[in-house]
């Protein structure tokens, strides 16, 4: 198992390099650059200023050289400095990441708890009205895009009912308090979590239904075990193995989905930072974000595999 993890980590290195190369070159092909985004070209002196600034930022170098510099910095544990603010990219990310992790984490917890619970109930009560309504809700949840759901939630709970704040991570002007922060978190977390709830529910239901018909479940009943033990120990233990994989695969999409939700709810996380960086052609920040996403994708795959082997002895002992 340890060797396996080590091998996986080594394989990730070329993948990470490949991703950064591709994104670096694509980003350089975007129309305009950081300097043009900051300096108005209407004035006569503008041209010289632009040249000067490009020289300072290294934007006049050939693209491969720019990439080389970036990698050089990276090897020293430095992600460069934001073109817009001059802050180090690492500190920008460090300042923004907790808000995003909070949003993702709560959304994921909502999705797992609700999704697995509803999926199990749906499967155990197959073909009941409960099952049918959960199934309907599931399809709705899967088909409705996050941003639309986000806007509906804002409309209903902030505008119409006035129950919850519609944007920000806390009330402006007040000292930060956790309860205020959590109130702000509810709508974006549900907007991000509900679509995943629906997909977890569908997977859990299918998986439980499949496992329920296995011979070993019949064996468990034939031993005289009660339904609760049969369900938790014999059905769920097996049914959740594939669900764990689905959850693992979902993590990266949750990270991506957070970008849109953060924009809608002005949630000052890393997604909002990324969108601002793209608008400002702030390539060090863009690259920082991309590198982080790539690490998250690779890490979630690895975590999924580890979880899988914890749950399934057939893999653990290979």
């Amino acid at each position, binding site marked *: 198992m340890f060797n396996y993890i080590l091998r996986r980590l080594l394989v990730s290195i070329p993948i990470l390099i490949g991703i950064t190369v591709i994104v670096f070159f694509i980003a350089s092909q975007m129309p305009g650059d950081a300097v043009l985004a900051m300096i108005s070209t209407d004035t006569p002196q503008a041209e010289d200023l632009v040249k000067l600034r490009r020289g300072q930022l290294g934007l006049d170098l050939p693209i491969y050289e720019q990439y080389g510099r970036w990698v050089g910095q990276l090897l020293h544990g430095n992600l460069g400095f934001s073109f817009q603010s001059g802050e180090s990219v690492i500190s920008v990310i460090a300042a923004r990441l907790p808000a995003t992790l909070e949003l993702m984490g709560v959304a994921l917890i909502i999705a797992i708890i609700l999704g697995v619970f509803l999926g199990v109930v749906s499967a155990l009560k197959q073909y009941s009205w409960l099952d049918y309504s959960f199934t309907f809700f599931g399809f709705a949840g899967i088909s409705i895009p996050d941003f639309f759901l986000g806007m509906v939630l804002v409309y209903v709970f902030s505008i119409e009912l006035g129950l919850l704040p519609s944007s920000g991570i806390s009330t402006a002007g007040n000292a930060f308090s956790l309860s205020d922060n959590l109130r702000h978190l509810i709508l974006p977390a549900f907007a991000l979590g509900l679509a995943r709830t629906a997909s977890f529910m569908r997977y859990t239901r299918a998986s439980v239904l499949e496992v329920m018909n296995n011979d*070993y479940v019949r064996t468990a009943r*034939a*031993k*005289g075990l009660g339904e609760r033990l049969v369900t938790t120990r014999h059905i769920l233990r*097996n049914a959740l193995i594939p669900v764990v994989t689905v959850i693992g695969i979902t993590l990266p999409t949750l990270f991506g989905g957070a970008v849109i939700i953060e924009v809608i709810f002005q949630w000052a996380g890393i997604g909002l930072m990324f969108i601002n960086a793209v608008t400002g052609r702030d390539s060090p920040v863009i690259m920082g974000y991309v590198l982080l996403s790539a690490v998250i994708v690779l890490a979630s795959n690895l975590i999924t595999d580890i979880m899988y082997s914890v749950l*399934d002895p057939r893999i653990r002992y290979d």
Partner: protein
Amino acid sequence: MTSPLLNVQNLVTRFYSDGAVIHAVNDVSFSLNAGESMAIVGESGSGKSVTVMSIMRLIRHPPGRIEGGKVFFEGQDLLAISEDEMRKIRGNRIAMIFQDPMTSLNPVLSIGLQMTESIQLHLGLSLKEAREKAIKMLSLVGLPKPQERIDDFPFQFSGGQRQRVMIAMALSCNPTLLIADEPTTALDVTVQAQIIELIQGLQQKLGMAVIWISHNLAMVAGVVNKVAVMYGGHLVEQAPVDALYEQPRHPYTLGLLNAIPKLEGRAQGRLVAIDGMPPDLRREPDTCPFAPRCIYALDKCREALPPLTQSAPGQLSRCWRSDELDQIANKVELS
């Protein structure tokens, strides 16, 4: 005369699927004394498993339902007691082993856990005592090094070993009745004989009654006192083994016997397959299910279901012509 250990009376089990009614078990009755062993034989789909699953009350609803009959076990009607009471009997007084040991054990739980969970439940032992009991059972079924293997997972055992584990698990609470639903079908031929011998030996040692389910009459004939033959959801004949071989009273039994190659004591002994298709269980069970395939069938057979009648001491059959079968069969044989 003491009452039998198990007495099944007029058992009826049906499945409801896609608007159709499947008559899986029709009016099945038989009884078994303590310590005795019997076989239920019949082709695939004849209702053997549904019969014993009904005795265990393990028919899932939907789609299935036990719709009639009584199952007296140790004097108590199992179909009349509560689910909680039934659960105390399952795995405890009546235990079951299944056809496929590959799929009948939970792949993600150690065999130790799978054994101790029912031992703890039924015998009220501590985990430590239950483990000791499990190890004892594993060595009883001839699993080498049980102390070392108890925490292994099913995939770490061979097919034959897994069936041994299943047997150890089933017998761990000292059941008075063991139901073995085709316990060797999924195993290698060499292992089959070992497993049969093992169960037989344990039966003598522990004194429980055993119901063997098989579609191979020859395989179980040597280990049981009596045989029940099922066809199309009906019990068509029940007899002591010797009587059944000596003089079968139902054409389907006759067909089964003729299908056994080179049977000692039967001169004709050639392999005869039974022509025709297995019956459709969706039809109303009010005529003889075997009539369409029966070379001795009369008009009467297609009009009414014969009752289960006694044709000789201890021998029951469901055939209008059971008494004359011997003669007409010989005639057909000669011509």
